[in-house]
């Protein structure tokens, strides 16, 4: 303990010295254009155009082939790569549409095997939609089969909610693309995880790529995805896969690495070959982590539902944006709840399925073995009969027992709308004082302080912190990240992003730690707060942007409030988890030494939970960066605004990717420092 105190002491002296030099540098360097100490020259300014030109060359010019276009009866010159990526798109789109037409009916699947001409000549060739009662019923049976009554009840509630609120059609559109994107992400993630587990070289290549993919804002790869794969549901699915796969890879790898060698040896002694070892021993043993990965994939897929509609994904996300543009917040809220419900149901179903044990020794009759399949058959017949009867009951066009058209269900829109109106009427003037004070006294001075930082001082501060925490290696790593940003033409923009992220992270961490510490006291509160965290994570953040703008205007306050709502989720979650995981024996030891509750929290539990909480702060930074970028939809002048602008830029691909990298590198620098520090602390506390 004494040793520790001395080293801590000397570290704080180091920090103090660093701060003094930093301030001196800030004060002594003149903000002149040409001074290299003030701002570095934008040496990388030409890179976006280069990236753009090379992508366009590869996509549209490289390896030209001539293809005869039947429709215009001419040869067309096209590029090989484009044809390959478009065939891939076509295959993916076919899968999505196939599932969609099972739910909603249509002609595309038939077209895929015949032609549009065939449909024109044979109007009967149409796949009928399943009645919604059948889909809902089958889902309930599935829930019951996998995990009994409670899951069945949850599924029933969710499907009926979606149907009676008139969101069946968009919900099935979203579901059909999630049902393709999620399994693909899981398979891809598991596969890459296994490859990385087998070969260290792959792991070394994969890790930095994963780091970048997880911290890069999704807006920045939308344009490249549309150039490579076109627009439509398939493009949405591809963007979703890019977003959802990294956590799956990471968690698979984590699970596989945690397997003790004894387990592997036991498998080999029993005569497993390589494939058997993998599927019968390794994957089942690593199951816990892999399942967490599946849960993350499902959450990420639905969190992308709105963003994916920017590049052509149909469904709830697109309707949500449309509703928000008309300021119909109630409608958007109902759509948002549908997204959350789909996420919860899919998550619970897949978890139960994975946890289901196969009973190898049961000796069952045909009926017993297939009772659930038979139940679904009954549901199908009953649903069809109901739909048929419905056609007699509902004479005026809409058969509610067959399909409830979009927005023709019941709605609570007016209630929410008047709630928002009430909020604006009653709170607006009261909040203006707070808004003005915050902007004038805190936000504007803070922003100016960040912008008046000479680049040399920033480097000194960040690399100095890196050196104190992790030595020369860390200093060089974070310095490298910073150098990349400093050499682009967006350094000032990045400083604004950094200012907003810093402010949001500080507030989020304070709120998250306090709420988390309070809730961790009781088991019930823990469950509730974790449920709230899960819900908020999939609930589309776009919905609360609008009421926030109505109250605080197009200002940084609005952006920061939206960011704080989102970034508090990981801060709270990790605090709760960290505190709940403090060994009971240590708590008892404290109680026996006669500490009271507060002392125990401050002196025993928080220090022990701190390394885990630091990982929470790490996630908070990543979440905050993501939302600051989405905050561009409100109106900011940081990197996010330029990423949004890249959707219409001439050099959109290059600009988008470079800006995305800038954001990712801010995240990675922080990530590196926190991870390094948390690791050392864990070792010091004997937790690692």
């Amino acid at each position, binding site marked *: 303990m004494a040793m520790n105190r001395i080293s801590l002491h000397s570290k704080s002296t180091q920090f103090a010295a660093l701060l003094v030099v930093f301030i001196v540098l800030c004060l002594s360097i003149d903000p002149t254009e040409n001074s290299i100490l003030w701002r570095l020259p934008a040496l990388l300014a030409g890179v976006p155009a280069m990236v753009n030109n090379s992508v366009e060359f590869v996509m549209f010019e490289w390896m030209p082939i001539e293809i005869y276009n039947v429709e215009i009866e001419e040869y067309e010159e096209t590029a090989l790569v484009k044809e390959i990526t478009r065939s891939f798109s076509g295959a993916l789109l076919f899968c999505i549409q196939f599932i969609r037409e099972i739910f909603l009916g249509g002609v595309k699947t038939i077209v895929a095997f015949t032609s549009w001409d065939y449909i024109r000549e044979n109007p009967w060739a149409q796949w009928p939609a399943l009645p919604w009662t059948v889909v809902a019923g089958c889902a309930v049976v599935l829930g019951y089969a996998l995990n009994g009554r409670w899951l069945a009840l949850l599924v029933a509630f969710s499907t009926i909610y979606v149907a009676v609120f008139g969101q069946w059609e968009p919900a099935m559109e979203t579901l059909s693309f999630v049902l393709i994107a999620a399994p693909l992400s899981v398979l891809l993630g598991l596969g890459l995880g296994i490859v990385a587990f087998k070969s260290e070289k792959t792991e070394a290549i994969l890790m930095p790529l994963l780091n970048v993919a997880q911290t890069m804002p999704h807006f920045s790869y939308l344009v490249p995805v549309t150039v490579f794969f076109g627009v439509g549901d398939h493009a949405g699915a591809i963007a979703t896969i890019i977003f959802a796969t990294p956590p799956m890879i990471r968690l698979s790898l984590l699970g596989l690495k945690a397997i003790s060698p004894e387990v592997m040896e036991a498998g080999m002694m029993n005569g497993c070959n390589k494939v058997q070892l993998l599927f019968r021993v390794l994957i089942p043993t690593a199951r816990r982590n892999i399942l967490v990965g599946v849960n993350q994939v499902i959450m990420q897929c639905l969190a992308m539902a709105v963003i994916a509609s920017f590049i052509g994904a149909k469904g709830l996300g697109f309707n949500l944006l449309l509703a928000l543009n008309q300021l119909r917040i109630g409608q958007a809220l109902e759509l948002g709840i549908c997204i959350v419900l789909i996420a919860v149901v899919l998550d619970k179903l897949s978890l139960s399925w994975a946890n289901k044990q196969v009973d190898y020794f049961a000796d069952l009759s045909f009926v017993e073995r297939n009772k659930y399949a038979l139940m679904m058959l009954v549901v199908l017949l009953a649903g069809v009969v109901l739909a048929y009867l419905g056609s007699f009951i509902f004479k005026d066009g809409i058969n509610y027992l067959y399909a409830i058209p979009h927005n023709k269900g019941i709605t609570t829109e007016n209630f929410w709308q008047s709630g928002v109106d009430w909020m604006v009427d009653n709170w607006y003037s009261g909040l203006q004082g707070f808004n003005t004070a915050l902007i004038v006294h805190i936000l*504007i001075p803070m922003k100016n302080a960040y912008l008046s930082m000479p680049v040399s001082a920033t480097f000194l501060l960040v690399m100095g912190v890196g050196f104190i925490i992790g030595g020369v290696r860390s200093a060089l790593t974070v310095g490298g990240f910073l150098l990349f940003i400093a050499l682009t033409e967006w350094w000032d923009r990045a400083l604004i992003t950094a200012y907003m992220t810093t402010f949001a992270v500080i507030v989020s961490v304070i709120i998250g730690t306090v709420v988390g510490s309070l809730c961790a006291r009781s088991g019930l509160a823990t469950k509730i707060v974790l449920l709230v965290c899960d819900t908020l994570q999939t609930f589309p953040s776009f919905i609360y942007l609008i009421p926030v703008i109505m109250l605080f205007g197009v200002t940084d306050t609005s952006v920061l409030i939206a960011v704080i709502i989102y970034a508090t989720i990981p801060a709270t979650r990790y605090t709760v988890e960290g505190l709940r995981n403090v060994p009971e024996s240590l708590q008892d030891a404290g109680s026996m030494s006669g500490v009271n509750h507060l002392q125990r929290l401050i002196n025993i539990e928080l220090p022990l939970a701190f390394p885990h909480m630091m990982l929470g702060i790490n996630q908070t930074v990543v979440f905050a960066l993501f939302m600051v970028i989405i905050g561009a939809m409100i109106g900011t002048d940081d990197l996010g605004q330029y990423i949004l602008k890249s959707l219409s830029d001439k050099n959109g691909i290059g600009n988008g990717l470079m800006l995305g990298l800038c954001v990712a590198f801010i995240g990675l620098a922080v990530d590196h420092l926190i991870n390094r520090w948390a690791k050392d602390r864990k070792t010091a506390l004997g937790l690692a």
Partner: protein
Amino acid sequence: MKYLGRIVFAAAFAIMIAAGMGQAKAADSSSPIVIPTHNWSSQVVMAYIIGGIFESLGDNVEYVPADSQAVYEAIRNGDVTISHEVWQSTFGASFYNAMAKGGLIDAGTHEAETLEEMGVPNYVIENNLCPGLPNWEALANCQDVFSTADSDGKGRWLEGPQSWHGDLMPNRLNALGLGDKYVVKFAGGADAIWAELSSAKKEGRGIITFNWTPNFTDAEGFSFIEFPPYYDGCRIADGGDGKCGSPKGWLKKAANYKFPKTHPAAYSAFSKLSFTTTQIGQMAALVDVDKMSHQDAAKAWLAANEDVWKAFTE
């Protein structure tokens, strides 16, 4: 590579024979025409209306949600077939960028005359919050009315995102000598502007914002500020002094270059298609005011205005 092309040609030829050569010539292809939907009402209703017109010609139609800026690249590549609301000042840049790269053609202009300009909700003028409006010179004396929390005592102009017109508005403020009394704030998108407008209306607050006509705000009452008239070359970007307002703008239609060849009848209708300001206003009002769904609104409009759209198909 020529060889590969030949194989593809042979395969295509074989398919054509197999499919039977007896099809009528010069009819529209049966492959679907892809129409983009964006996130504002008139555009979505008009998409379904145009889809309905194409369907009346026997064509297959497909709708795909797309970002309103990124869509021009998609049209160029043939992933989307048309775009029917190309606003001059907001999408002009993306439209001409895609045209310069090749693959996108100009399919004519709507009759509707558009104006995209800074303005105020009507109550600002009716309640005389800033005497002299809509003349721009009145602005010099009422910056306080339009100030906000972050505008540092100056009045605020709420502009669209920078991707719409870059530094046009800040330049205009300075050119008109209002630079020390007003600042420009770039909003993130149309949603942000509507949210501020609706909140301001509840409070009866003064607000200057970028807006356009035809738009759903026409129904609620919105007046554009009268700046010195626009003439060619008056903007700073074009070498002028910047002391001018926005021009009356066009509303164009765009198509993929293959569209006239694959669907000659549909293209002919699309190129003749032209809506007036009133008609576009009607379309938006069916959804925004009458709260119909977009599809229903399109059906209702097609049923009520057969004389208008039948003329395009002949």
